[in-house]
């Protein structure tokens, strides 16, 4: 009874569906609703998280003086809340990771999609995906025990716990994401594009560089953005290998010194901080800054994709 009532209600809301009244069973009703609800819930959750961050983070602006907040000293137990070194720390580690992940990731994707013979492809693709499933804390262990001592001796640095170590590890973590998405995008480029290029006398390299890669551009860019997003949000591996010293990182030379990232700061300090204190609010404020930076990266990426799509449509039409 109640089911019929609910059905009739849904029909009244969605008049388009009434013509298939006889086919829509109650299972279908539940399934469509469930899918719709999970779709909306993504938006609701992001909005809730954002409001929670605002509520817990914004009090910082009243509690900490602005000059303190933009100073270069982070030492929260003595009320030094300069978040600039943390932001530059996160940025330099992420830029370094992108410099590693983009060429390696796109290169691997091109090799798998365009060059490798079929049997090689069938080995490589699952291996890359397996790499993507490795927990980052395991990579962190490798980094702290093997990679950072080696890097210190190899580059003759005072310590191996540097931004560079974090960048290389993060690059390694981001590569499988980039490869996986970019390879799928390259794979969906129609075969006729390549055949057209070959018919014009283009070499394999020219076909890849001038035809296939630009055609798959939006997918490749999505892969890069997902990879960079993973890098900027990664916490555990970074906290283990970057040394966590809140030093201002202003040039690429800072890659060779220790840095403290925003994520590592939150992870290291949130556990012990008194709820509702100035320090607690400031950690949420850092979370808010991190959220805004990821948002900016995503918006920029989709703007680029959108623009290139429009241009492609204009050319094709």
């Amino acid at each position, binding site marked *: 009874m109640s089911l019929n009532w609910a059905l009739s209600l849904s029909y009244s809301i969605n008049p388009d569906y009434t013509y298939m009244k006889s086919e829509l069973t109650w299972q279908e009703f539940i399934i469509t609703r469930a899918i719709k609800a999970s779709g909306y819930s993504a938006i609701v959750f992001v909005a809730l998280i954002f409001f929670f961050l605002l509520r817990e983070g914004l009090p910082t602006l009243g509690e900490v003086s602005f000059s303190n907040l933009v100073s270069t000293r982070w030492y929260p137990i003595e009320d030094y809340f300069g978040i600039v070194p943390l932001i530059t720390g996160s940025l330099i580690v992420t830029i370094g990771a992108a410099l590693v992940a983009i060429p390696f990731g796109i290169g691997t994707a091109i090799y798998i999609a365009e060059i490798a013979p079929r049997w090689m492809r069938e080995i490589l693709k699952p291996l890359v995906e397996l790499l993507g499933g490795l927990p980052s804390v395991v990579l962190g262990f490798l980094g702290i025990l093997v990679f950072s*001592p080696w890097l210190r001796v190899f580059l003759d640095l005072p*310590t191996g716990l540097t931004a560079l170590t974090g960048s290389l590890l993060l690059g390694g973590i981001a590569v499988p994401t980039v490869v996986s998405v970019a390879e799928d995008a390259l794979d969906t480029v129609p075969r006729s594009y390549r055949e057209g290029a070959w018919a014009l006398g283009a070499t394999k390299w020219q076909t890849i560089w001038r035809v296939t890669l630009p055609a798959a551009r939006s997918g490749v860019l999505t892969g890069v953005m997902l990879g960079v997003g993973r890098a900027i949000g990664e916490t555990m591996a970074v906290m283990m290998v970057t040394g*966590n*010293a809140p*030093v201002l990182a202003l040039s690429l030379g800072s890659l060779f010194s220790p840095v403290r990232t925003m994520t590592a700061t939150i992870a*290291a*300090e949130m556990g012990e901080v008194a709820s509702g204190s100035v320090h607690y609010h400031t950690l949420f404020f850092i979370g808010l800054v991190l959220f805004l930076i990821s948002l900016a990266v995503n918006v920029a990426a989709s703007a680029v994709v959108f623009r290139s799509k429009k241009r492609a449509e204009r050319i094709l039409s």
Partner: protein
Amino acid sequence: MKRTPLLTGFLLVLAILSVSCSSRTASQNSPQSSVYIENKGSDTIVNLALAWAEHYQSVHPDVRISVTGGGSGTGIASLINGTVDLANASRQIKSEEIEEAQSKGINPVEHIIARDAIAVIVNPQNPVTQLTLEQISDIYSGKISNWKEVGGEDRPIVRLSRETNSGTHVYFLETVLRLSEDDNKTLFSRDTLLLPSSEGIISEVRHNPNTIGYDGLGYVPHDLRVIAIAETEGKPYILPMISTVNDKSYPIARDLYMYTVGEPTGAIKDYLDWILSSEAQDIVVELGFVPILLYQP
């Protein structure tokens, strides 16, 4: 009808929950057969106090001990307010606190229950074996940044520290960097590496000859070099050991306390006596603190 197994399961879970809840509150509140000791205070001691309480309760099932942290000041304040039986403190009670207690007719009695010493460690390849407190302070504040300035090789100094939320970090800041001077506002050098665990510090010191680090004496493995420390220039350089910590010749060590209201009696006295036994002091060693030597001849 299809719903029945689900419903039964749900009811079953509810029943189990309610039973377990009621049994817990019953055992916590009923004073008939068991004694209840409330223990609160220093975060430095909280793990030790928990380990003791766990062990003691397994041997004396009639005694229940509840342990919470919150800081030395919180513990002593609760003792004065009469809400706890035992207050843990990593510092001695202040004279204002004693006055406040006496104004309420409470006489806090001090018991030293363990000691805490911090060892300064370097890589075994490093020829430096001894430093003064002031040299360590200058190294960590950034005034000294090459090992040759303190008699070592020409190598940059890489400073390692625990994260700021560690009690060891705060104690090291106050006792070593600020040399226990109240008006001293020296801070750690900005490029001090803050590592999230003892293990991180030990692994980096083991692999890197440039490093200097510190940690609770009990956590330091034998393959690292422990630095002998002199309080000031001209005084003897002392290595941290159970004996030098107990005779107070090693400068970076402190006593850990429990405070009771008046001289302890009954179950609390039994518990404190057990804490000073060799069995409980072995747990002190396990947790990286230094045992007191009362039980040794």
